[in-house]
């Protein structure tokens, strides 16, 4: 069979033109030749980049019942072609399902590498100003894509966090360059490192960028980048905690990528600084960012479980029990714990302690 012309159209849309690619199949690979024929291989030949490897086994089934349900919803929406909104919604669901695929990050990273190569590295000339312009435009465009990836959602927190870190680290080094020439060299070096035809995954590239900077004596610069990203993530969490129940989740959701960016940077730094005290400080920064990301993520899961108010009702029942057994102060502390676990904004505290009702605490567990 000519894979390039006879394969399923949806499969082709995801993989693109398979000619020249290596399809992972069973324990080996199939190399799709230029004429569309396939050649079975037990192992990948040397020098094959991650972007040229496609895991076709992923098409066998979806990973979770939720994804199966979403697929069914999208199919039913398409069965009403007269309603344009239904088709738009089906398209959005397709995007979400694509973002759930285990190879989603690798696929987007491969696209990013191609853009870096064509827009920056292949177009370089001797003029430092032009190189800087192209390098910075690449970073601008990368950053401009992030809200769409996040809100789509077209990528998970780890992907977006990695891209935030990549962009911030490259910019930090370029911004500190003492001359135009060195700024151009720094941009080209960093972007070449990101775009290298290597199977290293995206988070590994972030760690590599950190290690390179630390080896060059730029550990303080890495810390500045981590602190700035942490500050943005923490500010979004603070914004969520200060919000009312209806505007609680959007900033919480947005914070996760920033905290995960810090986890990646801080873990990489902890692993390569020589001083054990420095390593301990980096590890603690990573711990804090990870703890915040986990709490925010858990809270989003709680929001889904609490759609009918039952989960919050259990919290209210528990607080009533604590108040009856241990008094008001103990109940207040317990309620504050729930807020610090990021289940509720602070504005819910009186509701958690009293009988008022709110969107998050529709009391169903009497």
């Amino acid at each position, binding site marked *: 069979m000519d894979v390039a012309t006879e394969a399923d159209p949806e499969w082709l849309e995801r993989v693109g033109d398979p000619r020249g690619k290596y399809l992972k199949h069973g324990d080996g690979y199939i190399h799709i030749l230029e004429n569309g024929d396939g050649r079975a291989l037990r192992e990948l030949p040397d020098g094959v980049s991650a972007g040229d490897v496609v895991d076709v086994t992923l098409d066998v089934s979806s990973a979770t019942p939720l994804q199966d349900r979403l697929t069914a919803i999208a199919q039913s929406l398409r069965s009403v072609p007269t309603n344009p909104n239904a088709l738009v919604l089906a398209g959005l669901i397709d995007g979400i399902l694509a973002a759930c695929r285990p190879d989603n990050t690798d696929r987007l990273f491969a696209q990013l590498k191609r853009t870096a190569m064509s827009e920056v590295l292949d177009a370089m000339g001797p003029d430092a100003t032009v190189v800087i312009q192209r390098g910075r435009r690449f970073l601008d465009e990368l950053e401009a894509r992030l809200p769409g990836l996040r809100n789509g959602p077209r990528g998970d927190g780890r992907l977006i966090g990695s891209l935030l870190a990549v962009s911030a680290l490259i910019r930090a080094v370029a911004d500190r360059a003492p001359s135009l020439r060195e700024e151009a060299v720094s941009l080209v070096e960093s972007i070449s490192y990101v775009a290298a035809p290597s199977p290293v995954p995206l988070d590994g590239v972030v760690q590599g960028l950190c290690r390179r900077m630390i080896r060059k004596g730029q550990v303080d610069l890495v810390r500045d980048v981590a602190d700035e990203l942490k500050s943005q993530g923490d500010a979004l969490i603070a914004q969520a905690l200060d919000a009312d129940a209806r505007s609680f989740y959007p900033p919480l959701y947005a914070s996760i990528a920033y905290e995960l960016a810090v986890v990646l940077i801080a873990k990489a730094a902890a692993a390569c600084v020589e001083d054990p005290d420095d390593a*301990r*400080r980096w590890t*603690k920064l990573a711990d*804090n960012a990870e703890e915040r990301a986990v709490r925010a993520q858990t809270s989003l899961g709680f929001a889904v479980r609490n759609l009918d108010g039952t989960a919050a009702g259990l919290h209210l029942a528990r607080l009533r029990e604590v108040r009856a057994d241990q008094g008001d102060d103990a109940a207040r502390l317990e309620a504050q714990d729930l807020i610090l676990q990021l289940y509720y904004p602070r504005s819910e505290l009186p509701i958690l302690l009293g009988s008022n009702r709110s969107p998050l605490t529709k009391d169903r567990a009497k």
Partner: protein
Amino acid sequence: MSDESAIQDSAVAISVEIGLDLTYFSEAGEKNLIHIPVLLGYVLLHWFLEGVVTGVGEGVGEGIDRGAARATRSLGERVKRLFGRHDRSSEADAKLQAELAAQASVAVSNARAAVVSGAADEIARVAEAYEIALVGYLTDEGMPGRDALRIAQRVRAEAGVQLRAVAPSR
């Protein structure tokens, strides 16, 4: 409002300020820190007030800064003891909270006696030294400077609340 209740309010206010930054006080990698914050609020309030007593006794000068820097080692040991407890049951937490509240109450009484005999500018200088020392302790634990400053300011402010009634007017 009783002294005990006011001291508890201060400990809670400090614990709320620490909030999601609790992980910086624990050993690297330690998680599941529920119920620790208020205990830590008492520890920090106690440590700061104890510092005021010691600092006012040492007089104005570099001795205050050295004393405050030395005191951070004792803070580190107290925090380590708090997180290193084997018994984490709610009964053990309640017992420890009562002990820490009693210790903080003694520290408040001692600090009130000390500020009556100290000059206002000297007390402010001591408080400043201990606030800076606390910022140093926290940043040395990996906490970003802005968060360390915010928490140290809250500890100083709550210590001030406890001392305000008897602060000298000189």
